[in-house]
Every structure is written in C-alpha cells, then in structure tokens.
C-alpha cells in the first residue's frame, strides 16, 4: 500500500526528524514551504505558548478554575494545524490542544470564553475549562472521558467516505488514551473500513503520573497500528516540520482513499498535568530540564535564523504583538458576562419535555 512517492516509512524505530537540534534541515527531500508558511508555523507555536502562559494568569486571578498546560506540545500541534483544511476537514481534539485550535482559526476570544464560561462560548459554558468546540470550524466539542471522542471521530470519517465528501478527520489524544477500550474499538473499525482519518497521538510519555512503560508493553505507540493494518508513523513532535510533513502525508493518504494512519508525535509537557496536579511527586526536575533544552520553539528559531527569517528582535516584536492580541481577546470574552444559571435546562434535547419544564420552574423559584 505504500506508494513510492510517499516520503515517509511507517514503523521506524527512530522518530522521523527533519530538522536537528541545531536547526539544520536534515531531510532527504527538499524543503518546499514558502517563507509565509514557515512564519505561520512559528507564529502559531508562539501564540500557543503565550496563550498557555496567559491561562496560568487568569487561573491565578480566579477568572478560570482549571488549566491543562500545553507548553511543549506546540510543534506537533502547529504542524498538524497547517496540514488540515480548516472548516472543511473535521477535528476531534482533546483538552490540551490550544495551539492547534488557535492555529486553525478558532477565535481566541471564544477559547477564552470557554475558559471563563462567558456568553461568548458557543458551548454555553456547559463544561469545565479546556473543553472548546466550534461547529462552524468543524471542531467537535471536547469531552473529558479520555479516548471517548475517538469512536465518534471514526463515525464521522465513515460518513465522509459514504457520502464521498473528500473530507478527512483528524483526531488527537494523549498516550494514555491508547490504553482505553474505546480507542481500540475505534481504530479497529477505521482499519476495517479504510476510513479517511488520521489518529494523532501527542505522546508526552505520561498519563498524569503514569509513565509510558507502565501504560503499555509496546515501546512505541506507532507500532500499535500493526493491529489495525494501517501505517503507524513515529515522529519527533518537537520538530515542527517533521510534524507538518508527516501529518500532511497522512492526511493526503486518507484523502486519496488509502485509509487511516496513526501518527505518534513524541512531545513533552513542561507543566504539571493540570492546575490540580503536582508533577514533582512523579518526575524529576532533571528530566523536565532535559526536555526544556529540546524546546521546539528555540529549535525552530535556530532553523529560521539560519535562513535569515528570524532575529531575536523580530521574535520579541512578534511576542508583544501576540500578547496584545491575546489580551484584547481576553477582555472581549470577559465582557460578554457569565452564562446565566437557567441556561442549564436548554439543549438537553432538541425540544424540552414536561419534566425539564417542571424542573426549570423549581430552579427559577430559587433564583
């Protein structure tokens, strides 16, 4: 099934890498991205990082109740984002995907609105923070139960195939998700049906405190694709270009009718699992520092710098510009005001029935 025009081999032992730590292009094919695209990748990563930092601040300010740090995941997410056709393809993300969502055009004020449960959240403040979703952009609303979005993602992909729409589904999840039964049932069905879908594992090596060795006997997530009869790619997810090119190839394969692939992006989460976690209990500071040295943003800066596309000053300017954007978005989101309590009775069903009306009255009598 592997056309020889495809760039990448599945099931490699070593992660696919296109730029080295020093920022050199080390691929065996020529870089065919325009300056604009390279800059977009960079900008998307930086925005993701800054947004993550801002979330910590609104958390401390009590404007939100929960954050899922995503710093360290930016390259994989920005790479994927550029490989997608936003608003055409469907995305089934998980809770750590803020870089990805912002990069495909999810309005940042709506991300904030979800974080703060204000009226600007198209999801009407129904869920805890870090659970965005936007129909307009085909972003399926995040659900907390790990891996539970993967079977629906497969269903959407099968629907695309049945209807011949030419769309592709991309679904992301962590390493932990691969242990769930729902995950397996989904990938297996996708494999049997050759559905147009890319399964993207953001492998940060931990499911909260449980390291990958305790999660699975297999050395690599990509190997798990053997079970389903489709390719599994093992990718350096701190390399934004490797992330982009492999995601693109996997999406193209799906679009051409060659079926699913599993892409494992090796990343690291610099922060704790969430604002409710203390990661010092289960991993050493040395380990975190080791990975900080591999930060995908400076690595890509070195790459850009070598090509004359980046200077420290330009970098600083960009950061300031993005910070201002984020602040404006935050203010806009906040200004919308908190979701009112009585909204809780809407959208249980398309049309509510008598019991919900009775109960709405109970609540209203208490307000």
């Amino acid at each position, binding site marked *: 099934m592997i056309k020889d025009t495809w760039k990448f081999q599945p099931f490699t032992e070593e992660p696919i890498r296109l730029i080295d730590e020093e920022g050199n292009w080390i691929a065996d094919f020529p870089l065919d991205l325009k300056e604009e695209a390279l800059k977009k990748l960079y900008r998307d990563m930086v925005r993701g990082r800054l947004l993550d930092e801002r979330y910590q601040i609104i958390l401390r300010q009590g404007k939100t109740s929960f954050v899922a740090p995503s710093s360290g995941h930016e390259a994989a997410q920005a790479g994927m984002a550029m490989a997608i056709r936003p608003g055409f393809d469907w995305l089934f993300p998980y809770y750590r995907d803020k870089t990805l969502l912002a990069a495909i055009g999810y309005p940042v004020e709506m991300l904030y609105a979800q974080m703060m449960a204000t009226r600007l959240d198209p*999801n009407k403040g129904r869920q805890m923070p870090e659970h965005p979703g936007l*129909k307009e952009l085909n972003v399926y*609303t995040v659900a907390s139960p790990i891996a539970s979005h993967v*079977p629906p993602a497969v269903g959407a992909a099968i629907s695309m195939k049945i209807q011949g729409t030419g769309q592709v589904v991309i679904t992301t999840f962590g390493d932990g998700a691969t242990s769930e*039964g729902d995950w397996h*049932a989904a990938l297996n069905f996708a494999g049997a049906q050759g559905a147009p879908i890319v399964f993207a594992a953001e492998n940060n090596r931990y499911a909260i405190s449980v390291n990958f060795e305790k999660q699975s006997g297999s050395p690599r997530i990509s190997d798990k694709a053997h079970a389903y009869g489709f390719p599994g790619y093992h990718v350096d997810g701190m390399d934004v270009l490797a992330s982009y090119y492999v995601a693109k190839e996997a999406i193209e394969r799906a679009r051409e009718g060659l079926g699913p692939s599993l892409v494992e992006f090796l990343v690291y989460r610099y922060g704790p699992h969430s604002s409710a976690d203390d990661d010092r209990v289960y991993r050493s500071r040395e380990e975190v520092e080791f990975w900080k040295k591999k930060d995908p943003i400076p690595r890509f800066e070195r790459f850009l710098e070598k090509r004359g596309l980046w200077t420290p000053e330009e970098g600083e300017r960009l950061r300031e510009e993005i910070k201002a954007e984020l602040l404006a978005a935050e203010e806009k989101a906040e200004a919308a005001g908190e979701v009112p309590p009585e909204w809780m009775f809407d959208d*249980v069903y398309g049309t509510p029935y008598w019991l919900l009306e009775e109960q709405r009255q109970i609540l209203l009598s208490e307000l």
Partner: protein
Amino acid sequence: MAVLNIVQAVKRALDEEMARDERVVVLGEDVGKRGGVFLATEGLYQKYGPDRVIDTPLAEAAIIGAAVGMAAHGLRPVAEIQFADYVFPGFDQLVSQGAKLRYRSGGQFSAPMVVRMPSGGGVKGGHHHSQSPEAYFAHTAGLKVVVPSTPTDTLGLLKSAIRDDDPVVFMEPKRLYRAIKEEVPDEEFTIPLGKARIRREGKDITLIAYGGPTVEALEAAEELEKAGVSAEVVDLRSLVPWDKEAVLESVAKTGRALVIAEAPRTASFASEVAATIMEELLDQLLAPVYRVTGFDTPYPYVPDRQYMPTVTRILNFAKKALDY
C-alpha cells in the same frame, strides 16, 4: 392491510425510512448479508448496499460511537445492538458521548440516532440474553427511550425515533417479535414519542406496563374481568419522555394502580412511575401503587418465565390492591 409481526414492523420501518431519506444508514453486527440475528434487517443489505447497511466489527463501542460521529456529521444512523445485554461495552459511548453531545456543545452538535436492541426475557437466554436495561438509559439525561409492544406501535414509533433529532434507545421486546401479529395500515404513518396508549379501558384498577409484560397485563385484565373487576391497561410505549398525564388521568379515575415491568425492581423505571403517581395522587389512592417487576437477581436460565411478572403475580398484586 398487511398482517405484520413485530420484527417485520421493524424491517418495514427501516426500509421506509431508508427509502425516504438517504441519510438513514443501518449498522451493527451481522446486519448485512445475515440480515441480523433476528432478521430485523433482512433484505436491506441487498436493497441498499454495503454503504448503507454496514456490518461492523464485534465492538459495541465502535457501533454506538461511530453512530454518534455519523449523526454529528449529518447521517441518521440506526445502530443495532444484537442483544440489549451487549450494550454495556458501548455504554460509555452512549452516556458520555451520545447523550451529552448536544448539551456540552451548547446545541452546536447533535446526535440524531437510534440504538435498537432486542430486550427482555422469555427466550431461555439466561442472564446475558434476557435483560431489560431501560432504567440505565432512562436515568441518563439526553437519551430518549422507547419500548413498543405491538407491530403497529413498533412501526410508527421507530419511524418517529429515526426522524427525532436526539439519540433514541429503541428497545424491542424480543419474546414478542414473532408472537404478536396484527393488521397494520399500508399507508405511511408515524406515532409520536411520549404518548401512552390505553390498551383497554377500565374503572377499578390501572395496570401500567410497557414492552413484553404488556401481554401479561392484558391477560390479567381479562382474568380480572371474569372476576368482575374492570381493569384499565396503559401501555407506556415511551419511557423518556413518559406520558405522565395519561397515567395520572387513568389512576385518578381508578384509584388503584400496578406498575408492571420485567427489569429488577430497585431504582427501576417502574419505581419512577410508582413514586410519581403516589406523589401526585396521594389523596386519591385507594391502595398503594404496587410494582410487579422482575426480581433483584441476575436473570436466571432456570426458571425463565417466572423471573418476569407472570399473570399469576399480577393477579396476586391486583388482589392486594383491591382488598387494601
């Protein structure tokens, strides 16, 4: 008017809806060439092809979960779970994804889908081919739950369920699949969800049932008539939403009620109905509302029928209510 049994009514409903709306697809284990193990999808694969009648791997999470995604993407999937007892591997998909999609997305996404499943006992299936898990669904906000007991109702309700904009669990009492035949109008019709049906009018006691035990309720009503007691039989048909109005109206008239269902009693739908009636009609009751249900044991292989509410059991409780 054609004479149909319940399984034929299911097939006709699927066929009509698939012909009417090409977004309707059927998926499940053995639904293709095999036509389903109860033959409820017989002939559909041949007529509509493998893209609309999809044999799935043996994985209920994949079936229900994929249906959610298909529905979100614009199809109208009708998933078959081979036996209601096998919904549990797909339970997370049903309650965490399907039931809550509209809600958690603020109404942006929805899951207009049907999950059909043969349910209930009386087929010598032991505890994994006989359960009646409707209470789990009824307790889950966001799901609708329908349990027909006649061919006509099956046809009309299944069509409504397929057209409904929310996930509907459609439970088919498998022991009645071929046991009940009746004339069904040839022209198209639907029956709205949420409406009970008075199967028999009466004035001394109301027997409220749904699904399989509706049969025993009707038989018990006939026995009661012989003893000079006039029993009204209300077939709920829909559990979520359920027709509280019709139930209260009947019990307000008779002053006595039994709620009859096959599932175990504790935290059952029968308990819901009984609690609601007593809460709302306390002063008009001439006797407590008794629940005549399956026992709080797993469904045994031996005995098969006596696990469920038998006519004898219904009559014993009716006597208790009448003598109260």
